[in-house]
Each structure stands twice: as C-alpha cells, then as structure tokens.
C-alpha cells in the first residue's frame, strides 16, 4: 500500500532532481553548488554517516555526478568535423559514461544492503536434511586435500546425514589413458594415492571417464552418483569451519524455493598485491568489498550468486536445470543465473565459514582474474541476464552490475592514455577551460570518491580499486577482447594457489608495467616542457598534467606490486585461538595454551618448562581436547624457536602430521572457531576517510615505486639469462 504512494512521490522528486540538474546553469552557480554539495556530503559523513543521511549524502553525490554528465554531454565533446579529436574524445566520453553507469548500478545494488543475518540454530530445525559434501579437485596434492577433508569431516553435523565426496578430475580415465605416457603415469599415481587417502579418511572417491565441461561436468558427474538433499561445495583448498553446516542448512527449511546459501571466501594468505605492498594485516582484502557489501546488497534483491565454493545448494533445484551449467568457464555464476531465472531464491550469509588460500604469485592472480573476466563476459554475451525473462528487474540489474563490471579494462586503459593524447599529440579531446575543469570535473571526482567511501568505506580504501583495476587491465584487456570476438572459445584453467616465491623477483608479467610507467614519466617531462614552452595554454596543460601524474602514481604503485616479495613459504595469517593444551618436550608433559595457529603451525605458551628444555628442531607433541567427537591422540610438532619470560616459555612449532588423525587434529585446531576469522576481518575494516586514505595511498605508492624501480635496476644488472631461467623454472 505504502508503495503506491512512495513510487509516484519518488518519480516526482526524481523528475524535479532531473529538472534542476539539467539546467544549463552558469559556471559561477555551479561553483557555489559544487562547494555546497561537497561540503554537505563531508559534514554528513562526519556526523551522520548512516541511515537516512547516508542516502541523502548519496543523493547529493548523485546530483553532482548528474550535473557532470549533463555538462560533459552537452559542452565538452569535440566537434565531429575535427575527427582526430572527436574519435579519442568520444571514446573517453564513453569510458566515463561507462564508469558513471557502473556507479549507478552499484548504487542500486548497495544503496541499502541487508544487514548480516542473525545466526541460525540448527537445534531448532524440525528435520535435518541429508548433505553431500563435494570437494572437486584437479591437480591439488594430497596434503592440501587431506587438510580440507579433515576439516569437512570435523563439521558439526550428524555423521549419518553427511557424505563427503572427493571429485577427482586429475585421475579420470581420459588422463590415465593419455597418449603422453608421463602424464598418464602421474594421473594413475594420483588416482591411486587419492583413493587410498579417501579410504583412510573413510570418505568417497569419485572420478569419471572424460574431462568434459571442466568443473561443472565434474560436479554433475558426482550429482548423478549421490542423492543427498543438499550439496555443499568446497574447493580443494577451502576448508570449512566446524559450524559451516550448522549456520547454513537452516535456511533451506525456511524457504522451499531456496537453491543456494552462499558464504564468503575467506583467505588466510594475502593475494600478491597485498603481499607485495605489505597491506594484508592492515587493510581489508580486495574480495571483502564483494563479500562484505556487494553480496549483501545483491542479497537484498534476491540476487546473491554462487561463487563456486563455500556454498550449499539444493539438489532438487539443480535437477531442474540439469545440474551445474557449463556454457561459460564461470559455472558458478552461470548456474545461479539459470536457477534465479527459474524462480529459485538465494541467500547470502555474511560470516566467513571457510578459510582458503589464494594465488600467491601475480601471474596466477592474473590467470584467475582472466578466468573470471572471460567467464562473466561469456555469461553477459551468451546468457544475457539483462534480458532474461525469468529474472526480476532488480535481479537483472544485479547481474548487469556483476557482468558489466568486467569491462573495466577498456575504461581504465582509456583513462590512462587520454592525457597522453594531449601531452604527446596535442589533441584536444576534452573541450573545457581550466576553470570549468576544476568546477565540474574536480567536483565530480571528489563526489565520486566520497560516494565510494560511503558505499564501501571500511571495505575498500580510496584508490585501491583503481590500483587493482589498473593491475588487471593490462593483461585482462586481451582476454576480454578475445571473448568478445569468440565467446565460446575460452577453456577452464585451474588457478594455481600453492605456488610460492622464494626470493624477491620481478613477476614474469612485469614488463608492460615498466613500459607504461616509463611512458607516463615521459608525459610528466613533456608537461614540464609544455608549461615552459607554451605558457599560453598552461591551464589546460596543468590540468592534463595533474591527471597524468595521478596515473603515474598508480603505475608506480603497480611497479611495487609486480616486484614479488620473497617468502620461505606461503605466508598465512595466524588465527588467535587460546586453547588449553598439554605439551610434550622430551619425556615430560607441560600444561600450556595454544596462542594462535596457522595452517602450518602453532604458537604455544608452556608453564613449567625452561628455555633449555626446548631446542629448535626438536620433536615434540601437542595434546588438546578436540571439539570433534571420537577424535583422540596427540599431534606431533617440530619446535622451531623459543622465547621465554619469567616462568613461561613460548614455543613456535611446526605441525608434523604423520597420520590421518594428525590431519584431523590440525583441522580441529584451525577450523574450530570461525568467529576468529570474522574478528580478524573486522580488525582490518577501518575507514580511513577519503583524505587520509588518499594520503596513505600516496605514501604506499611512493614506497612501492622505489622498491619496484630498485628491483628493476637490480635485475637489469644481474645476468639476464639467469633471470630467464628462474622464470622458466617457475613456469614449469
């Protein structure tokens, strides 16, 4: 009923807004308007950043953006008879309008995201459904898999209702009978090894004859051989917490038409950008913007989609569409599109319930993103969710937002090259005076920054999106173009997540970034020369030069990203646990507390022992009360270092599992408490604000530039052949 009043009212107000915004107002009035509106946004952000005022502030920003769009459209495009200016000018205009459109879609999606859902109590359920747990694998090793399997087994759910399946696509008949004898032998070995592993754990091993339709085909094969009401999917490197099922299955009883409960992907290790810039512990991860805000926003519109892992799906729903979809290489989102269009619902639970690993090298990171970009482009082109009849209008907009996002390489590269058109070739692709630029464009940019900060503030710091987009654009552009040309061509490539970097080195994908940096730097020199030699157009030169310098800052930061930081092993975050334990040193057991754990080891504080009792490299054991019923035993560890104070000794230990039971003990230790992960995320979720965020980005960028240039200089001095070998070795 209320809607009947609100819709017309909204329409009238929107019309009034459009009317005001499209008045061809004078520059002076625009200046006053811009300052007032920006001032209002800043004030509101200081005092009332939530609720209705948040929407008002967003409306303020929208007004300025619309003003800019109106002015940009009516006043700044070069005349069509200057074709050399018009073409690049129009491309820039399109790129800007694309950005504005994406901003509008994000506004729609996340203007009022659902707050995190209240926790579910499994005990309140009338009947617990049967669950099949799928762990699809392709090339992951047994050690990684055993840790995931152990965690899955430790999930708190009646044992008779859960069946765990290892879906091995690396040991298919096709692989085992390959004509290449070496590959066939290794597939055969893997097949046998994993069968044994499953037998040891007491879970089901399943493989198939041919590797058709990649991951989707693999899971569809498993669907045929299983019959649980629900299907939980975990990637081989995504280990679930104990409460994963507890917190997800309940939703299926609430809603009979529910096909998906998706949970966030939480990573214990930094992505290469975080790693190389050293921001992992301080700044929210890149994917937190997606899982922290966007999925919640999508959830409001019943549009949260399947992300391939860490989710529970309803078999009945999957049956309706013939299982997982395999047209694109992102089967997850595609499956969600198919089921949403059949009228099925999805739910997003905003709490990390799995912990995983993500690509550690820049090359594998780019490989992963290429797959996403290509897959989403395929969905855009082949599935056309925007025009899909089964989807509601909000859902179409949600999918438009998710798929069109991946066109960013075009706009990002246009923004990068646009100032160079003027600096190098003297093209006038944006017809505006210096003061117009300040009053309209600067106001628009500031409004945009503040709006982004309103929308994603504590999940995404200023300029980080720009950096990530730039980092990806260089390599994603060809990938996206190739999909646009041949939408059915791309094939699924498994992302390698267990690679590591042993010493500081340049990524094999680094050269374009150095090249771009060099060109932009040349642009700065040209700016200086032009200011000196052509003082009569200093205002335009200054504006364009400033834009180029902004690009240079981002490009400089990128140099730091492609200079990979060496690590002994995959760096993972340590989770605080505080769990009572007994610790064996030699023959004696001492009482102690497990302070924190990573996937590799733990830190234990022991009472009673002295530093002399513990020697690095010494074998020891850790015993604690497992949460998992029926699990007994102690966990062998290696002491790696000690420190002591007064009557406590702190021991850094590395796990040394020998049996399955040890794996399960580790899993019990690490994945016992998903709350800890949330705590960790929350500690990073801090909104520095636009100004401080910009400053800290600047500082980080300068450091990264210096580090990157240093590494480039060193690698140029080093024997190039040796470097080539190193890289080749990595690729192999």
């Amino acid at each position: 009923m209320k809607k009947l009043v609100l819709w017309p009212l909204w329409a009238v107000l929107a019309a009034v807004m459009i009317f005001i915004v499209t008045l061809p107002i004078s520059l002076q009035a625009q200046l006053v308007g811009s300052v007032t509106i920006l001032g209002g946004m800043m004030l509101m952000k200081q005092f009332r950043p939530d609720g209705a005022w948040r929407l008002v502030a967003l409306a303020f920003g929208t007004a300025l953006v619309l003003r800019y769009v109106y002015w940009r459209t009516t006043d700044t495009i070069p005349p069509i008879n200057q074709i050399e200016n018009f073409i690049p000018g129009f491309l820039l205009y399109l790129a800007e309008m694309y950005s504005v459109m994406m901003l509008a879609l994000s506004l729609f999606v996340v203007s009022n995201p659902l707050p995190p859902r209240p926790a579910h109590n499994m005990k309140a359920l009338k009947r617990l459904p049967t669950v099949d747990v799928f762990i699809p694998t392709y090339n992951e090793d047994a050690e990684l898999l055993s840790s995931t399997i152990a965690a899955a087994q430790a999930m708190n759910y009646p044992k008779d209702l859960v069946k765990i399946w290892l879906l091995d696509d690396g040991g298919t008949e096709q692989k085992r009978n390959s004509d290449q004898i070496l590959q066939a032998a290794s597939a055969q070995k893997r097949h046998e090894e994993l069968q044994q592993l499953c037998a040891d754990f007491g879970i089901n091993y399943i493989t198939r004859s041919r590797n058709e339709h990649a991951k989707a085909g693999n899971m569809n094969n498993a669907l045929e051989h299983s019959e649980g009401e629900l299907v939980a999917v975990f990637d081989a490197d995504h280990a679930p917490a104990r409460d994963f099922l507890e917190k997800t299955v309940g939703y299926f009883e609430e809603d009979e038409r529910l096909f998906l409960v998706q949970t966030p992907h939480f990573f214990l290790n930094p992505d290469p950008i975080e790693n190389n810039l050293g921001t992992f512990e301080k700044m929210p991860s890149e994917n937190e913007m997606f899982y922290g805000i966007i999925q919640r926003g999508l959830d409001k519109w019943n549009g949260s989609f399947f992300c391939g892992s860490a989710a529970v799906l309803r078999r009945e729903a999957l049956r309706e569409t013939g299982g997982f979809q395999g047209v694109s290489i992102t089967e997850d989102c595609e499956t969600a599109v198919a089921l949403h269009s059949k009228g099925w619902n999805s739910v997003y639970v905003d709490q990390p319930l799995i912990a995983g690993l993500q690509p550690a090298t820049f090359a594998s990171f780019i490989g992963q993103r290429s797959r996403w970009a290509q897959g989403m482009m395929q969905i855009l082109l082949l599935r056309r969710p925007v025009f899909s009849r089964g989807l509601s209008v909000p859902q179409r907009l949600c999918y438009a937002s998710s798929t069109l996002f991946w066109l960013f390489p075009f706009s990002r590269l246009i923004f990068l090259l646009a100032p160079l058109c003027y600096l190098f070739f003297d093209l006038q692709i944006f017809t505006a005076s210096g003061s117009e630029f300040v009053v309209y464009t600067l106001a628009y940019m500031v409004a945009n920054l503040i709006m982004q900060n309103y929308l994603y503030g504590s999940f995404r710091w200023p300029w980080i999106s720009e950096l990530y987009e730039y980092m990806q654009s260089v390599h994603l552009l060809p990938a996206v173009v190739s999909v646009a040309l041949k939408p059915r061509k791309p094939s699924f490539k498994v992302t390698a997540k267990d690679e590591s970097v042993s010493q500081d080195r340049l990524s094999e994908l680094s050269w374009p970034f150095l090249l771009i940096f060099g060109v932009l730097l040349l642009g700065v020199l040209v700016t200086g020369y032009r200011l000196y030699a052509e003082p009569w157009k200093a205002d335009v030169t200054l504006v364009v030069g400033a834009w180029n310098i902004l690009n240079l800052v981002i490009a400089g930061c990128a140099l730091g990203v492609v200079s990979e930081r060496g690590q002994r092993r995959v760096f993972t975050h340590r989770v605080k646990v505080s769990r009572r334990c007994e610790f064996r040193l030699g023959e004696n057991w001492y009482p102690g507390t497990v302070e924190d754990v990573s996937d590799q080891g733990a830190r234990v504080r022991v009472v009673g022992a002295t530093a002399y009792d513990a020697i690095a490299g010494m074998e020891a054991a850790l015993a604690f009360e497992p949460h998992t019923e029926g699990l007994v035993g102690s966990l062998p560890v290696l002491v790696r270092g000690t420190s002591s104070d007064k009557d406590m000794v702190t021991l850094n230990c590395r796990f040394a599992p020998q049996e399955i039971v040890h794996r399960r003990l580790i899993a019990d230790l690490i994945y016992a408490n998903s709350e800890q992960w949330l705590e960790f995320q929350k500690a990073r979720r801090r909104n520095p604000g636009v100004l401080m965020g910009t400053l800290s980005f600047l500082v980080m960028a300068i450091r990264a530039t210096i580090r990157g240039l240093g590494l480039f200089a060193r690698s140029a001095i080093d024997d190039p052949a040796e470097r080539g070998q190193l890289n080749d070795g990595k690729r192999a």
Partner: protein
Amino acid sequence: MMRRLVSFLLLSAAGGALLAAGPVSAQSAQPEAAGAGAPASAPVTLPLGLLPGAAAASQSETPRAVRHILPPGGARLSGEMAKRSWTVTLPEEGLEDAMLQIGYENAVMVAPESSTLRVSVNGTEIGTAAIRSSSGITDLALSVPNGVLVPGRNSISMQASQRHRTDCTPNSTYELWTELDPRRTVLTTAGPAGQPVSTLHDIAAIGPNSRGETSVAVLAPELSDPAVAETLIALAQKLAILTRAAHLSFEVVTDADEMPDQAALTLTVGTHERLKQMGVAAPSGTTIHPGIVGSSQEGVPHLHVSAPSLKALRAVLDDWTWPTAENGPQEQTTWPATNAPLLGSGESIDFAGLGIPTERFSGRRYSQEFSIAVPPDFYAQHYGEATIKLDAALSREVQPGSRIDVYVNDRIASTVPILDSGGGVLRQLPIRVSLREMRPGPNLLRLEAVMISEADAVCAPGTTASETPRFAIYDTSRIVMPDYAQIAQRPDLAAFVAAGQPYEATTADAPMPLVLGLQSGETIAAAMNVMGRMAASAREVRPVSVVTPTAELDTQSALFVSPAANLSPTVRDHVRLAPPQDTGWAVEKTIRLALGRDRANELDEWRESLETSPIRRQFQELSDTLNENFDLSLAALRLVPGEAELFYPDEEDTLVVVQAASPGGTGTWTVVTAPSPEALRDGSADLAQRANWQEVSGRLSVYSASAGSITNLPPMAVDLVPTQPLSLSNTRLIVTNWMSGNALAYSLALALACVLLGGVTLALLSQLGRRP
C-alpha cells in the same frame, strides 16, 4: 581666417580630393573656422566670399547649405582598423555639388605613409587620404559626385587603416587614433540655405549643430493645461522619430520673448487666440489647424499647431499624417532605429548579414565592430553564452600566443587562444561569448584578433607597413544565439531605455499616465526629452495622459517627471530616494550633512575599521580570488535580497532616473527627477542623447553633468513579469537564469531536492526487495 581659407582653396584646386594641413600659423585660428561661430542651427549660411566650393568652377555663387554630421563629442577612429558610419537626412532638393569636409587630428604614432582614411557615401567611395595630421586639426575636402546623395537618409562612412611608426607590438596599436572634429566635419551642398521649408520631410532634414545637438524651441502659452502638455509630448515623440537626431533637446517657454534664438526648429502650440496674442500668425475662428510648416527669416524651420480650443488641440495630431520611417518599411528583423539585427532565442546570423565583409588584414590587431539586438525581455545575462562560429584563416607568420577576443559592450566576453603554430584555416571555430554584458536592445560587439609574429618581435623598419595579409575573415562566419529565457524584469531601466518597457502596451484608449511634479516649461521639456528619446528608440509614439497622482496609480505603470522638491513624498519614499533636504540637492547646503551623509560616513568608518582586521582581510582576499577566477561576487551569494537602500544624491548629480514596482505590485513606476527644474530640463536633454541613453540600466541611474558620467545601481530584488505564455522550455531557462544569478538558492534547491529524494528513496528501498 582669410589666409587659412585661401590655402584651403589653393590646395583643393590643385590636389583634387585631398587636402593637407594648413600652415601652422593658421591652426590657432581654426576653431572658429568652419561654423562653430555660426548660429547653432542648420543649415548654416556661409558668407559668399568665403565659399569653399570654389574648386568647382561651375558652382553658382549662392550660399551653400552646411550640415554637421557628427554626434555630440565627435568621433574617434582608433586601432589599426576602425570604421564609423553616420546618417545625414537631406531635403528633397539642392543636393548637387556636394562637398564633404573632414576636420581631423591624429596621434603622433600614426605612420602617415601607411595609414589611410577611406571615406564613402552611401556605399560609394569618394576618396582616400593619408592620415597625416598629428600636429593639429587638418581639413580634408572631398567632393561627392552628383547622384550619390539622395533625399532622405544618407550614410557616410569613414574607415581608418592606421599603422604605427615604430612599434610592432599589438599593444602599440592602442596608441593609434584619429579624431574627427564635429565642428569642422560637415557636408555642404549647393542647395541654398534658408530655402523654404514646406513639408515635414524638410523638417526631417534639420541636422545637428556644430556641437551635435538638435534643439527645438517651443512656445506654448497655455502649457499648464494637460491637453497642451500631452500635445507637446506627442509632438516631441513624432519629431524624434522623424529626425532620428542623436541629441534632440527641447526648451518650452510661455512667452514669445523668451524664445531662445539658436534653435534648429521652432514650434508653437496653443489656441489660435492665445497664439495671436503672442504675435504668432495663426488662423482664427473655428478651423482646426493641422499645422503650418514654414521657416523664419533666418531659415529656421517652424512648426505650428493650433486649434480653436484646448480640447480640440488633442485632435489635431490625430488627424495629421506624419511621414513614417524613410527608406521603406522598417524590417522586422532589426532593432528599431538601428541596423542591429534582432536575434531571437536560438537565432543566428552570418557575418555578411551583419555587414562584415570577407577581408584580409595585414596588421597585428584586427578589430571589427558589429551590433546585434535582443528583445527587452531578454533574460539570460547570468548563464547565456552565444557562439561565434568563425571562418577565418591565419598565415604561417602567426604564432601561438595569438588570440581572438570578443567584447560585448566594451567588456571582454571571450578569449580564444590560437594554439597551433604555422597558420591554418579555422573552419566554424566555435567561440563562446558570455552574454553577461548583454542588455536589451542593441549591443555593440567587437571581434578582435591579436596576432603575434616573429617579424613583429624583430620589428625591422617598415614591418608595420607590410601589406602581406596575416589574417582573413570570411563573411560565412556566424553568430548563434543560445535558446534564451524571455521574461521582463522589474525594475529594469535597460529595458526602459531600449524599448520604453514596460510602457509598450499603452494605446490611445489607455494612455500612459504621466505625472508632472510641476506644470512648468522646464518640466514639460524634460518629459519631452525623455519621451522623445523613448519614441526614437522604439520607433513608436506612446500616447500619454498627464495626471495627478491618485490611488489608482498604485496598480498602474506610470512615469513621473518632477524636480525633487515637487516630487510627492510617497512616490519618493517608494522609489527609495532620500528627501532632498537630506541630500546634496538641499537648497540649504548646511543642513544636508546633518542626517544621511553623516550616517553613511559613520558606516564607512566602521567598514574601514573592520577591513583592517585579519579575518575581514582574508574574507576580502577570498572574495577577490573568486571574483578574479570565476567572476563571482559574494553579493551573488545572498539568499534573501536586501531592501534597496535610500539613495542620497550628491551635489554634483544632475539627474536621477529610478524605477520600482508600483505599490500595488502590478505596474512599474519610473521617476525622472533633478534638484531644480532647469537641471531637470538640461539633464534630461543630456541623458537623452543616444550615446548616454544606452548606458542607463539597473534600478537607478545617476547622471552628472559636470563629470559627464552615468552611474547605475543594480536592483536588489527583481520581480519577473511574464511577457509571453508560459512554456516548459522558457520556464526552464528562466529558472536557469534566476538560479545562475542566485547561486546559493540554486545550491539550496539542489540540496533540498537531494534530501527529499534521499529520504523517499530510503522509504521506498525499505519497502522493496528483502527487508532485514
């Protein structure tokens, strides 16, 4: 004087069209030479023996008729290129053997060998002369071929092309000027002076005197009667339209003995009887006399309007057919009384239509003036931008750093830098011209191309004389007006002077109420001056009815012409004029400082003391910065317009014109006042000069005769009065202009819309999709 004229004759006989400067010794005698000493009427009779036209042997020995050409103050041709045109109205006969005499003086810096003055009459070039008179006024005499002059309106143009002697910088071109002396720039014709004046066409040909004035002396013994006043005002308007004089002034007396003797035209109005008593020949009895046209013994034309009774007088003019505009019907597309094309919303005109030819230019500062007019309800000063689409070419010589400037009413409105080196062709190059300085009626625009070149930087001797073109402009260039808002503003003196707005709707049935504070000759003359100029601007006679102020006027538009002392206090307070005793207009000078001025001084002192405080200074700096970079004044940020402050005229102020909405809010009151009746008459005559009149704008305008200055005060609050049916697009543009002028209101409207939209969006979002 003899020597001077002898040399004049010799030179013109020997050298054809050209005349060089006379001997230096003769220069001092020159001011009296060409007619300044003659009676201030035209035509003037020159003594036979001194006839300058003797160059033509065939010339008869009758006295030649001399017409002054220039408006008051003469004319100045400045810069490297300048062109001026004037109109002379000539009678039907006696146009043969015409001579154009030009008295001019130029700046020392003008290089004579490369500077020329080209003179043309009605488009026919009649001569070119080198500009070489830097040490005093030189007279040129050019004969006008027979057949070039026509009865009625004739156009005389002078085009100067001037180059600097030594300097090649664009700035140096501002040192170049040639001044034309109004006393010695005349057109003489064979037509005998003092020939019988018989038709109104002959009256149209009365020209200005040597000071550029066309003065009319009026004898109206019964002027205290409103009918006489109304008749006089109607006559003033008709004469103004007929003569198109640049400076038409009236003097009204009640007694024949008081008639001034140096008028260009005399006028008698009244009853037969009364005029007869005055010794004016007039019919008697019951005949209604439509008017006698004749001339006095001195050749001064005379117009006579009389009737048996005052009541019948009104009917006289109605029955009398006056010649309408000459040279065919007035084109609808140009502004009345000018050549300025009227450009409506979204209209455009090419340069050919503006009279700008395709031409090449070899100097460093090309300058071209043209006029365009906009209607009185033009309302786009705050946001509007016209576009000049320029077709031009630059030679290889022209370097970056050169620029094209556009001025509107002498204020810079656009600067486009030329960024490409090595010349090139500019095809429809858009130049956006701010309409900030645009005002209702005709506007003077100037397009300048300032060119920098290597050769100028070196400035070798003779560089300035080079005739290699650097710049070419094509008459295919266009000026395009934007879609602009149209609504009348109140008060708006600019619309008043341009078109007599908002009095345009007056008809004979509903004449415009005119309140004369005093039924004196001076006051009526002032009303005639103002109404005459108004009619000339609008080319339309507006019937008036002389009334006494009543409550009815509160809802009507009315004109008040009155000495300050006779202005009714209610009217004076309403238009926010201080009582005269508190101002510089007080009769007792000692009293005037008591109130207003002192308070104003006190305020100034306060302001000064505040200005020294650091906060104030910073505020001022901010204000200056905004003003400099964005042309934004802090006054534009006012949300609620303040009330107009009382205006305290100064002792030096001769005349004040002030406008306000009538107390009822539906009409407009315009008040013309001065400290004394004489100041009112003379001040209004001065202000009603075409050049001065066009400068009046805002809410209040002050003319100071001693300083020759006009000061305008902008309105505090403006009422908008619709002039056409409301349409969405016009409303949108009206809102745009209003918001552009009230930036803070714009911001607040935007913010309010955002707040409401944000709130409703939240309410709507909480109804849509999933809810927490």
